[in-house]
């Protein structure tokens, strides 16, 4: 019911828009006059790189009647400057009574602003000049203090646990189902004499999920080197391809089998998402890998890969932080690392104290978030004023 009312309103609105006359041609004899905007205020735009002044004004009284088309903002070095010395610096449609002049020629110098209202019928009227204002650049964005505090707090927690780990303190990490299967999956491929397929996602190296995937690739490659199982690593991103190759090569030499490393096992297919999927599908059906790993960032191709793999009878282990692809991996794969589990995986597999320390740090940050959420909820329910305060400090800028 509610939606129907809304449609009705929209229909009325647009009908009104259609019937409103278009701005008149300049040849028309004097259109009905329009009242100028009220008080114009100018001030330095906060938290910026300078050369910018924010201007706001009281709307023309005619705006309420729907007569206003928009406002043109002018700048000058003097409040009494003649018409020709006012520079047009912006235009905003009606409804917005503020503008940001981002072309202020000099910081630290006084400028004045005027706002001209333009009516739908072509008339216009200009306001009084504003107060003088100077633009300046800031060295700290105060809107981002919350992010700074949160980031530093997180860094501190993580660094603390890394230090603890380095001091040799034992750090417990629970079993993660999908990862316990890694060893078994590699073993199975060895028994069957079939290769292992590892797709390190389709994203670029700057995507953190890719880094996590490459980390797991290193661990898997060590195992394939140990068992002498062929490894296939198709790539979509050129940079990731380069890194993946280094990772695998290094894993083989670390196990002491640099001779077993096949230069052709890490290869590049194509930049195209579906071209890549078709290529990997072909590899899966022709080479029949016994185990498929899909780790990192995936998009719609996730199900194409996973369902083809399922049809070939391979054991499949997937891991991604792409929330919308998780349902497909869950339905079509044997094990799936959900979201953060992908990041935990490298620590879990490598058993490196520093990595485990980071994971601990993440865990206690989570506990802190839960604590803050519960406290925030409780306080907000008790006092609406506190709610406003809490939501305010959590506003990001």
């Amino acid at each position: 019911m509610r939606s129907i009312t809304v449609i009705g309103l929209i229909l009325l609105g647009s009908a009104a828009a259609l019937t409103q006359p278009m701005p008149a041609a300049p040849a028309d004899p004097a259109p009905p006059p329009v009242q100028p905007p009220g008080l114009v205020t100018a001030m330095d735009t906060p938290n910026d790189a300078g050369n910018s002044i924010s201007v706001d004004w009281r709307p023309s009284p005619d705006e309420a009647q729907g007569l206003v088309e928009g406002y043109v903002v002018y700048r000058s070095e003097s409040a009494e400057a003649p018409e020709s010395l006012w520079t047009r610096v912006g235009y905003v449609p009606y409804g917005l009574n503020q503008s940001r002049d981002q072309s202020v020629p000099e910081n630290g110098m006084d400028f004045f602003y005027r706002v001209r209202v333009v009516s739908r019928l072509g008339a216009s009227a200009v306001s009084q000049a504003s107060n003088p204002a100077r633009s300046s650049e800031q060295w700290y964005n105060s809107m981002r203090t919350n992010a700074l505090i949160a980031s530093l707090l997180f860094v501190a927690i993580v660094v603390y646990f890394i230090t603890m780990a380095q001091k040799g303190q034992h750090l417990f990490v629970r079993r993660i189902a999908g990862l316990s299967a890694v060893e078994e999956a590699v073993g199975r491929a060895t028994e069957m004499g079939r290769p292992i397929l590892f797709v390190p996602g389709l994203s670029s190296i700057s995507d953190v999920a890719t880094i996590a995937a490459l980390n797991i690739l290193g661990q898997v490659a060590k195992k394939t080197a140990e068992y002498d199982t062929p490894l296939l690593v198709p790539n979509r991103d050129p940079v990731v391809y380069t890194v993946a190759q280094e990772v695998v090569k290094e894993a083989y030499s670390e196990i002491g089998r640099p001779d077993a490393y096949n230069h052709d096992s890490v290869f590049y297919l194509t930049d195209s998402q579906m071209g890549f999927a078709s290529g990997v599908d072909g590899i899966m059906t022709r080479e029949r890998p016994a185990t498929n790993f899909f780790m990192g960032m995936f998009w719609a191709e996730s199900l194409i890969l996973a369902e083809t793999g399922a049809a070939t009878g391979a054991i499949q282990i997937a891991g991604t932080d792409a929330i919308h692809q998780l349902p497909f991996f869950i339905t079509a794969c044997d094990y799936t690392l959900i979201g953060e589990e992908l990041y935990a995986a490298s620590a879990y597999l490598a058993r490196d104290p520093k990595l485990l320390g980071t994971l601990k740090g993440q865990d206690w940050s989570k506990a802190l978030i839960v604590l803050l959420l519960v406290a925030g909820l409780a306080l907000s329910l008790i006092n609406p004023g506190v709610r406003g305060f809490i939501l305010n400090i959590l506003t990001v800028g």
Partner: protein
Amino acid sequence: MRRQIPLMLVLVLGIFFFIQFFVPSRLSTNIYQVSLQWLILISAFAIVLAIGSLVNHHLLKIKRRREHWPYSYATLAGLVVMSLLGILGRFPGLGLLDEIYYRLYLFVQAPMDAAMFAILAFYMASASYRAFRARSKEALLLLVSGFFIMLGVIPLGALIWDRIPDIAEWIMMVPNMAAKRGILFGVGLGITATSLKIILGIERSWLGGGGK
């Protein structure tokens, strides 16, 4: 040395750009802007290596007469023709090449791209048929919520019972959103922690080798 310089670079750049986010000044934003262009340019060069890998892979296949080797000619031909047309077609006087390039894209690449994507419709059916079984409590929840959403999305759902679209939206807005948010918190921390590990030089897989 070989690893110290890259690790130093990562540390310095990482800290610099972390701080840059909080500094709105002109210098800071200028550096930021230029860096974004640098990022694009630097990563573009890796395509040469990648294409080298592709060409090498297929030349080797043809040379050694490996299984299915004749198909490699299709890959190599497609690669050479498409890249040459695309690059040369931009030069003045070679507009015809650009026209062929456009056609090849529209009638060779695009249809295959779309067909590959369309295969997903079939796979959705086979995957849901296979996996949406009431094997456990969790699987039952997956099944029931999937079922309601499928019904709720189509106009037909409302004809069966007019509350079905509301139930579907409730599932999307309440339990679904709660799960997404919960996962997102974890992912956010995971991303931040990994970025931090890269900057601090704890995460070194990209140097080749896991952690040395």
